[in-house]
């Protein structure tokens, strides 16, 4: 039986080459100057450029606002969908997931079309609106999943012990749905912080996000500087992941798409 553990080896080697090595290379490039010697100059350049720093801060703001809006709008939806007495049909949940199967660029362009149609100016408001549009399903689905599996006897116990509906919700249901919330937050925050094309299309290049800054630098051949920027984003993502997984590590919640 144990001999088959060696079956993990090809995948392990594959991951080393295509996941670990590229990340190590980003780090190496980030700490190299144009002559190829070790230096912190790329990171230093970033912190000296006011525009780039501001773009990063702005992107974080946008991502936080988008994530919060998705949570505020998505949680009630997930809650309603999970309650058998409020929603009996399985069709609605499928309807919520379905937009995820449509190419994100097509969805974005459709949103732009909607704004054009309603004569809504393309700008910051449109950007946030469009992002919430695009990423709402990613918030609803994981929360729905945890709420659906939630053992109803906890809620009944709270009821028996005299909790009113609001107390039940705040002190029992929300804490029990935390794994879903954290994976939903991750699944919305990650793409919004790192997006580049979507923001370009939604605002006709009026608003620039950090992802666009990275992409521009790489496209212009500034690989060392671009790598340094990527590294900064990587650190940001790492911190977010650690924060949201600091509770219980749930191996499978992050991939619970299908």
């Amino acid at each position: 039986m144990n001999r088959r553990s060696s079956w993990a080896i090809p995948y392990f080697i594959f991951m080393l080459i295509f996941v670990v090595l590229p990340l190590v290379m980003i780090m190496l490039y980030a700490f190299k100057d144009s002559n190829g010697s070790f230096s912190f100059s790329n990171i230093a350049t970033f912190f000296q450029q006011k525009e780039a720093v501001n773009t990063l801060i702005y992107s974080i703001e946008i991502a936080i606002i988008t994530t919060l809006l998705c949570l505020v709008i998505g949680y009630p939806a997930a809650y309603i969908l999970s309650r058998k007495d409020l929603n009996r049909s399985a069709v609605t949940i499928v309807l919520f997931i379905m937009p995820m199967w449509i190419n994100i660029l097509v969805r974005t362009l459709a949103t732009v079309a909607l704004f054009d149609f309603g004569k809504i100016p393309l700008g910051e408001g449109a950007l946030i609106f469009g992002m919430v549009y695009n990423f709402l399903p990613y918030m609803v689905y994981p929360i729905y999943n945890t709420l659906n599996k939630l053992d109803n006897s906890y809620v009944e116990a709270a009821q028996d012990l005299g909790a009113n509906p609001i107390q039940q919700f705040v002190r029992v249901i929300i804490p029990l749905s935390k794994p879903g919330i954290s994976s939903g937050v991750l699944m919305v925050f990650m793409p919004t912080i790192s997006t580049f094309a979507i923001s370009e299309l939604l605002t006709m290049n009026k608003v620039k996000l950090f992802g666009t800054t990275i992409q521009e630098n790489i496209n212009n051949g500034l690989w060392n500087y671009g790598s340094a920027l990527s590294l900064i984003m990587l650190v940001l993502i790492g911190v977010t992941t650690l924060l949201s997984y600091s509770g219980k590590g749930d191996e499978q919640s992050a991939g619970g798409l299908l």
Partner: protein
Amino acid sequence: MKKFLAQAYIWTLLLLLYAPIIIIMVFSFTESKVLGNWTGFSTKLYSNLFTVKESGTTFAVDTGELVVRSAPQGVSSSLFSAIENTLLIALVASIISTALGSVAAIGIFNLKGKKKQAMYFLNNIPMLNPDIITGISLFILFVAVGLTQGYATIILAHITFCTPYVVLCVMPKLIQMNPNTYEAALDLGATPLQAMWKVIVPHIRGGMVSGFLLSFTLSIDDFAVTLFTKGNEGLDTLSTYIYADARKGGLTPELRALSTIIFVIVLVSLTLINVYSIYSKRKNIKKQYWRYDKAS
């Protein structure tokens, strides 16, 4: 009342979510270049989608004074090849991912302790990595190694971000499996390979199928990773084609028809999958009931 409010909330959200898609669908039935401008019902965008325009150029016949300019019919061959590329890449990448991921899942399942944890951790990295980082890091790798970017690099990149999902789809099936069945097959004289093929594979088949489907959709949907790994030889998938198109200003009208078709395919297949799963659940219950009936 409560139920009414809840339903109203859900359906308002859904209406908002689907509004852009509905607009695209409605305006796929009119010829106008600009979206939102209705110029009468027509299915020309659909018929255009299935006719390839001659080498993507408008051909003008110069007859002395008079220039007869024939209107371009059909879509450019570049859109056509973008669709082909998307499907081909998705198919190859998801087949390889499914194979690699299933084998890996069996391996990881049989690992213990720290090694298992390490593999889980490795497996999580590509899923948590933002697309842009995956794309850039692979781009740097390919450039450093000196690999010419094209089909091969896109497929390698797609395998990289698809395989972890296959592992996650197959793993629960392995955990649910009774390990004794494999041993029993060996005791009954099956070779390890036979036992593998006849016992383990049927057990994990469901996970492999959903891993394959997930990989396929992830690959078709991918944009950022493809953009960085496609090189600059003019190779495009649907995503990168749409991106380039949108940046040039305005979406090719035919893409409205294409999006509608894709959406309908997704709608139909999801409906079928759901109907099938409900049906097979019912059948299972019936079967169990029947067994119970016999036993008593």
